[in-house]
């Protein structure tokens, strides 16, 4: 900045204004890391706060269902109440089997949220890692990973699930984790392909070349510079898959290769509603609404996260 000592007639001397302080570039402080920076922006965004609160509530419901209903969901299902309308103590009415819809939705939260969240995490870990490596390194790494993905792509879901559930280990321990395993095993290639595409798009960008010429190692540039710039589609896919996996669990359970009947889930109730769609479509409404709200929370969180992480709008 040029000194304006000569123009003291018109404005206050620069020493007396806050301008110098404002314009100073602090070089002694380390730049904020990407994540710290994102967090700083994130915690002020209403979208993030709302979605975080919603997810928190969902988690509380999932792990402490007893706080929200006194009715044990699986006991005392009476056919006399089949498809019954809402009544005192049963605000959502009854299912085809005469169980309390509200209690089932509350108690179904845990399995559904676990399947959705952990399957997505699993898919992210495997899919993003393999996809990023394939896209970034190209060549034979890409060939091996991509072709492996093709093989898994071609595996019919039903066949894969039937075989996996037959493995002695899973046969004895049918649980949420079995379902998560099956989903991750068969769904990672999609995430890998998407990540690979996004990484290929970014890897040739100028700032990567710049980083590399500054001596940043390949793997470091992948983690620090390529991936953050490729996050948007990954977040979108992950948040959408969360919902799709919860419904997928229902399909597997319906076929007898998912959760045992005693574990409640929204998916189970959604597919059970199939027998009532001509007569009592309302039973579909509540589990589907619970699922929608969950997916919505995660989509909002994803949106907020994407905005905060977007390097193009990042402060420096």
């Amino acid at each position, binding site marked *: 900045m040029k000194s304006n000592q000569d123009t003291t007639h018109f404005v206050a001397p620069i020493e007396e204004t806050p301008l110098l302080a404002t314009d100073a570039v602090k070089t002694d402080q380390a730049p904020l890391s990407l994540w710290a920076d994102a967090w700083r922006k994130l915690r002020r965004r209403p979208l993030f706060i709302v979605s975080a609160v919603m997810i928190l509530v969902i988690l509380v419901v999932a792990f402490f269902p007893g706080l929200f209903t006194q009715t044990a969901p699986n006991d005392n299902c009476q056919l006399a109440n089949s498809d019954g309308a809402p009544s005192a103590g049963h605000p959502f009415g009854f299912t085809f089997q005469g169980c309390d819809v509200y209690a089932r939705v509350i108690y179904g939260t845990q399995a559904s949220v676990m399947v959705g969240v952990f399957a997505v995490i699993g898919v992210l870990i495997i899919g993003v890692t393999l996809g990023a490596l394939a896209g970034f390194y190209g060549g034979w790494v890409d060939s091996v990973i991509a072709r492996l993905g093709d093989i898994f792509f071609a595996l019919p879901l039903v066949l894969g699930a039937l075989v996996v559930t037959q493995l002695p280990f899973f046969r004895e321990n049918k649980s949420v984790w079995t379902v998560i395993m099956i989903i991750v095993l068969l769904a990672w290639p999609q995430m890998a392909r998407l990540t690979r595409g*996004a990484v290929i798009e970014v890897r040739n960008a100028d700032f990567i070349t710049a980083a590399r010429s500054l001596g940043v190692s390949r793997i470091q540039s992948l983690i620090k510079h390529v991936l953050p710039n490729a996050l948007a589609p990954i977040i979108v896919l992950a948040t959408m898959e969360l919902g799709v996996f919860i419904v997928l669990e229902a399909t597997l359970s319906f076929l007898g290769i998912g959760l045992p009947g005693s574990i409640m889930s929204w998916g189970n109730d959604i597919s059970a509603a199939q027998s009532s769609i001509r007569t009592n479509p309302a039973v579909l409404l509540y589990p589907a609404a619970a699922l929608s709200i969950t997916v919505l929370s995660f989509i909002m969180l994803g949106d907020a996260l994407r905005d905060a992480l977007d390097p193009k709008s990042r402060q420096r």
Partner: protein
Amino acid sequence: MIQFILRRLLQVIPVFLGTTLLVYFMVFALPGDPIRALFGDRPPSEAVIAALRQQYNLDQPFWVQYGLFLKNLFTFNLGVDFTGQPIAATLGRVFPVTVMLAIEALVIQAVFGIGFGLIAGLRKGKIFDSSVLLASLVVIAIPIFVLGFVLQLVFGVYLGWAKPTVGTDVSWSTLLLPAFALALVSFAYVLRLTRASVIENSTADYVRTATAKGLSRPRVVMAHILRNSMIPVVTYLGASLGGLMGGAIVTEGIFNVPGVGQKLYQAILRSEGPTVVAIVSVLVLVFVIANLLVDLLYAWLDPRIRYEK
């Protein structure tokens, strides 16, 4: 470029062998005796079971069965299924139907997904954006058996705009309704992927440059924002082919489409190894080629992307 394509096509061979081996083994490992299952609750005589087992090579160990399958394959003889039908004829029947259905669904999800996604991305946070978000939630949360059924009832029965089922009458117009139902879920993905990319690219330097240069808004949107947003969308579309071709079990059931999904599902439940492997082999070829096309599209969409050699 030619070399790149050739190399990719050569990779089909190990993928093909890997897939057939894996799938054949999985069918082999399926629980339940397929021959006994043909007879329901009333078992036939042991002699008949033994005769059938021999007929389908099921009395042989796994490696012999797989070897026989490969040998037959290279002599272009896919064998017969448990109903005595030549598998090649079955493939020739179901694949054309499924290809038509998949193309139609792909076009529908691409046109609507990209179109709506673009508008939503450009008007982030506005009413249109919120409404399509709501629509995607509905599509995710309500299973296809309900959505498909409702479409069928409304357009097929009440309004009478379309034939409710396909059956023997396979044509582009009868497949429109099932293609629409099939496209719904992927449509939500395409839409949100497009939207996210558009939002990200709208603030990019080259968009500001283009605008500053005085380019018209439509030109900026189409040539700069949209084109640069297409990579994740194209990737997804390529990857979604699998679901459209092999996984359309429910949709095909609802609309009685005589396609691959139903055939594959039946064959799995009946443990008909050769049929399952034959179908999956064709599917794998489709994926490899679709992925190759996607990779070629990358280079066209973003000139910075170059494939070595």
